[in-house]
C-alpha cells in the first residue's frame, strides 16, 4: 500500500493532468485561456452542491458539472471567436475573476467562508480512470477528421476557413469541451479537498494551469501531461531546499522560456498517415 502523503500527491497529479488537458484542447486550436480556474470553480461548486445537498451519486455529479462548465465554456467562447492572442488572455482572465467574485459573494454556497462538508468521494482509482479516459480521447482525436481540423485552425485560421472548415464550430467545440474537462477537474478537486472557497480558483490557479501547458509544450497533449507531472512533482522533490523552492522553480521557468520555448517535449514533429490499399 502507499502512504497517505504519496496518495494525496498522486491525486493532485491526476487532477493537474485533467486541468492541463482542459487547456491543451483550446490551445491546440490556437485559443489561449487564463480562465480555466473559472470553469474549474463552476465544476467544483456544481458537483459539491449535488452531492452534499441532494445526495446525488458522485459520478453523476461529475457528469453534470462537466456539462454545466461546458455550456459556460461555449458562452464564453462566442466573444472569443473574434479576438485572439493577448486580448483573448485578458478576456478569459476577466471571466475567471467574475466567477471567483461570484462565488465570493454567493451566500447559499457559503460566500467568503467557503463550502465545507463535501464528501471525500474522489479516490486515486477514480482520478486514474478519468485520466486514462481523457488520454484515450485525445489520442483518438489526433488522427481524426476533427482533430486535423483543429490543428489546421491553429496553423492558419484563414487557410482553414478557405478549406471549408467552419471556424465557429471548431473553436466553440474546442473551448467548450476544454471547459467541460476543467469542470471535471474541479469536481474531482472539491471531493478530494472536502472544503472549497472562491480563492482556490482564482487567477493563481488559472495561471498554474497555463504554466503547466507552457512548461510541457504547447504543441501536444503529451506535453500537457509531462508538464503536469513536472509542475506537480518538482515542488515536492524540491522540498529539501525549503523556502527557496518556489524561487528555484520560477528561475527554471524563465530558463525554459529562453532555451526551450516549445516546452519540455519540444516542437511536435509531423505524424505519418498510414497508406491504404
Amino acid at each position: 500500500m502507499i502512504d497517505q502523503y504519496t496518495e494525496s500527491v498522486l491525486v493532485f497529479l491526476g487532477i493537474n493532468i485533467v486541468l492541463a488537458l482542459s487547456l491543451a484542447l483550446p490551445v491546440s486550436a490556437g485559443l489561449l485561456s487564463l480562465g480555466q480556474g473559472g470553469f474549474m470553480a463552476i465544476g467544483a461548486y456544481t458537483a459539491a452542491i449535488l452531492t452534499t445537498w441532494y445526495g446525488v451519486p458522485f459520478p453523476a455529479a461529475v457528469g453534470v458539472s462537466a456539462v454545466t462548465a461546458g455550456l459556460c465554456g461555449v458562452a464564453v467562447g462566442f466573444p472569443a471567436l473574434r479576438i485572439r492572442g493577448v486580448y483573448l488572455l485578458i478576456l478569459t482572465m476577466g471571466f475567471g475573476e467574475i466567477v471567483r467574485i461570484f462565488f465570493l459573494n454567493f451566500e447559499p454556497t457559503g460566500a467568503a467562508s467557503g463550502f465545507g462538508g463535501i464528501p471525500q468521494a474522489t479516490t486515486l482509482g477514480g482520478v486514474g480512470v478519468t485520466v486514462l479516459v481523457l488520454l484515450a480521447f485525445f489520442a483518438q482525436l489526433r488522427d481524426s477528421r476533427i482533430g486535423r481540423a483543429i490543428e489546421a485552425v491553429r496553423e492558419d485560421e484563414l487557410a482553414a476557413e478557405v478549406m471549408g472548415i467552419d471556424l465557429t464550430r471548431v473553436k466553440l467545440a474546442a473551448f467548450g469541451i476544454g471547459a467541460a474537462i476543467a469542470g471535471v477537474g474541479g469536481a474531482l478537486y472539491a471531493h478530494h479537498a472536502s472544503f472549497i472557497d472562491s480563492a482556490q480558483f482564482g487567477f493563481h490557479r488559472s495561471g498554474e494551469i497555463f504554466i503547466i501547458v507552457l512548461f510541457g509544450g504547447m504543441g501536444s497533449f503529451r506535453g500537457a501531461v509531462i508538464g503536469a507531472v513536472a509542475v506537480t512533482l518538482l515542488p515536492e522533490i524540491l522540498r529539501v531546499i525549503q523556502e527557496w523552492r518556489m524561487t528555484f522553480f520560477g528561475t527554471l521557468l524563465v530558463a525554459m522560456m529562453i532555451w526551450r520555448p516549445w516546452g519540455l517535449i519540444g516542437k511536435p514533429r509531423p505524424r505519418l498517415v498510414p497508406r491504404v490499399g
Partner: protein
Amino acid sequence: MLALERVTKEFGGFTAVADVDLRVEPGTIHAVIGPNGAGKTTLFNLISGVLPPTAGRLVFDGDDITGWRPDRITARGVARTFQTLRLFRSMTSIENVMIGTHCRSTGGFVAATARLPWRVGRGDRETIRRADELLDLVGLGGKRDTAADELTLVEQRRLEVARALATGPRLLLLDEPAAGMTPTEIKDANRLIQRIRQRGITVLLTEHHMSVVMEVSDRITVLNYGRKIAEGAPETVRRDPEVLAAYLGADT
C-alpha cells in the same frame, strides 16, 4: 458559372476593385491579368468570401453568394490557392490535402472517439485514398510524408493546388500559379492546369505576365487600377490598344 455584377471593394478611401463585371463560363480557363496592384488578389478574396464586397453582387451557379463565409463558399464548390502560400506548414503534404477534404467528409468528436485506435476509420480510409490520388495528380506522390515547409517553392504551389482540389470544387481559383517559376516550370504548371480542366473543373487564374497565360487561357480579363479595361480571347486582348498602352506599354 460565376458572375460578378458591378462588384466594388473599397479600403478606406482606396478603391481596390471598381465596378467590375465578370462572367466565367463553365469548362473554360479564364485568366485575370494586370500589373501589380491592379486588384487581382482582392478580386479573388471577394470571390472566395475572405473579404465582403463594398457593393455589387456575386452569383455562383444560380446562388447569390455575396457575403457568405469562406467555408460555405468552399462547400458550395469554389476552391482557391494563395499567391503568398498559406499551407499548414508543420503538417505533411498528405495531411494538408486531407484537410482539404473536410467539407466533403463527415465525422466529429463522436466519430473520432468511437473507432478502434489501431485501425484506420472507414471515412479516413476514403480520405487518405483521395488525398494520395491528388498528390499523384500534381506530381507530389513521392513527397507524401514530407512536412510542407520542407518542400521547394514550386512543390508548395503544387501542394496548394492539390489541397484546393481536395475540397471538390467546380470552380478553382489559382492566384498567380506561376509566380517565381522558371519557363520549364511554367510549362509544367500550364499542363497541370489543363489536366484540371479535363476533369471538368472550371479554372479562373490571375497572372501579371501576359505571355504566361496566352497559351492556356480561353478568355482573358485585364484589370488596371481596379477597373476592367479589356476582355476577350487572348489574341484580341493582346492587340487591344488600351491594354497595350496601360499595361504592356508600362511593362516593356
